[in-house]
């Protein structure tokens, strides 16, 4: 008994820690224009490649150092978080919308539509995530909106599969049959009764996917196929530091730590949510 309580406490504590990390980084990003100590885009050429803690000539410190153009890394990370986190949320949000709608319709309608969507999903799943996104970004060119399309193009499949299988299981549940017998329209059946029941599972999965999308952004921007510099995103800053690894390790190191903390926080939070909302989903899930 004691061990179970300890386990629950521990689980909650980890989820809480995750939430703290996510909220802290999220707030930092949201408030970046007001709290960033320096301009993220304009550097001072007299302060290039300064190490963390360097105090500038104007007296204001560069807590995490500066890059090759004399821009403050901390300010760039705060502003970059706006882009990286927003991308994660938008991509997962769009994918959730598409995946839940198609998943419900597919499960309810069955037949031809379900079969066609099933094949489409099979084909999309055959492409490794990063390869597919890289190919699409090569096609679209860099930019925030292009990234959303390139990532959501495959991401919706995750929600679709979870929702479809849940909805299939519920399709003939007593409460659905009862409501059908009572004369509810198919629209009402799907978007009221089924939706409410599949949503918790979909939300849990979505939470676990935000971090993944942030990681993808970093990879793509690192290759020059994501966010376009000079606009900062976490991936862009890491890429900018790559040529200075020998002289200025801090440029690439700190944005990576920001990514790590955010993704870890998101995963802890998602795990906690999963345990709380939907214990049936408590299986090991691969990120691909």
């Amino acid at each position, binding site marked *: 008994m004691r*061990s179970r309580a*300890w*386990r629950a406490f*521990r689980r909650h504590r*980890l989820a809480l820690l995750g939430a703290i990390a996510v909220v802290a980084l999220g707030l930092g990003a949201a408030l970046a224009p007001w709290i960033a100590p320096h301009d993220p885009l304009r550097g001072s050429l007299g302060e290039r490649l300064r190490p963390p803690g360097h105090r500038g000539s104007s007296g204001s410190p560069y807590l995490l150092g500066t890059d090759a153009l004399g821009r403050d890394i901390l300010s760039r990370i705060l502003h970059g978080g706006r882009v990286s986190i927003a991308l994660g949320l938008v991509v997962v949000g769009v994918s959730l919308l598409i995946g839940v709608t198609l998943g419900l319709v597919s499960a309810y309608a069955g037949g031809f539509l379900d079969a066609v969507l099933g*094949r*489409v999903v*099979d*084909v999309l799943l*055959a*492409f*490794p*995530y*990063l*390869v*597919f996104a*890289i*190919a*699409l970004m*090569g*096609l679209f060119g860099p930019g925030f909106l292009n990234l959303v399309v390139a990532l959501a193009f495959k991401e919706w499949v995750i929600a679709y599969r979870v929702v479809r299988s849940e909805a299939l299981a519920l399709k003939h549940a007593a409460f659905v049959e009862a409501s059908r017998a009572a004369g509810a329209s198919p629209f009402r059946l799907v978007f009221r009764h089924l939706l409410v029941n599949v949503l918790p599972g979909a939300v849990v999965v979505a939470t676990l996917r935000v*971090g993944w999308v942030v*990681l993808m952004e*970093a*990879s793509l921007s*690192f*290759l*020059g*196929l994501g966010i376009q510099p000079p606009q900062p995103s976490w991936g862009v800053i*890491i890429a900018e*530091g*790559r040529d200075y*690894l*020998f002289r200025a*390790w801090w440029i*690439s*190191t700190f944005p*990576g730590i920001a*990514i*790590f903390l955010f*993704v*870890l926080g*998101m*995963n*802890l939070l998602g*795990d906690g949510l999963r345990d709380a909302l939907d214990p049936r989903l408590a*299986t*090991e899930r*691969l*990120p*691909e």
Partner: protein
Amino acid sequence: MAGYLIRRLIQAIPVFLGVTFVVFLLLWLTPGDPVEILLGQTGPITAEEIARIRREFGLDQPFLVQYGRFVVRLFRGDLGTSILHRRPVAALLGETLPATVELTLFAALVALLVGVPAGVIAAVRRRSLWDMVGTVVALAGVSLPGFWLGLILIVVFAVNLKALPVAGRLGFGTGLEPRTGFLLLDALLQRNLPALQEVLRHLIMPALAMSTGMMAMTMRLVRASLLETLGQEYVRTARAKGLPERGVVLRHALRNGLLPVVTALALNLGALLSGNMVVETVFAWPGVGRLVVQAIQTRDYPVVQGGVLFYALTFVVLNLLADLSYSFLDPRIRHGRGE
């Protein structure tokens, strides 16, 4: 078994066709004329020249004809010709493949060597400090950008400690003759121990950078699966017979517990193979990933097309193998629900 095999193979056909179609479509839609890009690199050319190149690459044909030719050529193993290198894409892929496979398998080995024992310890010492540390470390492992870890490793081990080489597969002056393309194998075959050491020194950082995710997943999978089998009746029976706990865990529980792990890992190998694109770029590893990334940056369409196709088909084949291995190991699957 044969029936199941055939059924799965037939199911793979539409996926295969869909994959080739999407790959073809991707590059057909690409803005910018490949001929112009070619011209940009070779200087001024006449209009007849342009027309000739268009014919040569079949770019003057309608969409479906181009797609049809693409699939037919595929079956002959012809992936087209690189615009940049002026060489067959299949040859370029063939040359870079061993480097990628070697790195991927080595990374998988690292992941298993750490992940399986860690998972076993976490399951056996459930709810201990080990278990908790393992859980958090595993979550951290999947939360790390692999290429960033690669950069950090470079800073620590190459720049500061000067203990490991920054990039590449092999330094100069080892006297190693590349024959198979798998340098570890070459070094072993030629009994060249200094070269073997060199190859390993080059492998370790990129492999480590790639393996964290798989390591973490292996650990969590082994833990979960072992916990389940440890609760089974036959394990209780084995214990009741008075068998030593070590034997019960390793022989009875782990052997059965590894079943789902095998499948998941085979699936993961595909993810690992493609996830290494960025890591290869970081370490200037002359593999398929770097080839494709460079091709995208230089708009060398045929190479991109070939590379993406290569990744997708490898992924499909690995999935199929994972499915088959699972059904081979667990007869309930092939005899049970045949959808």
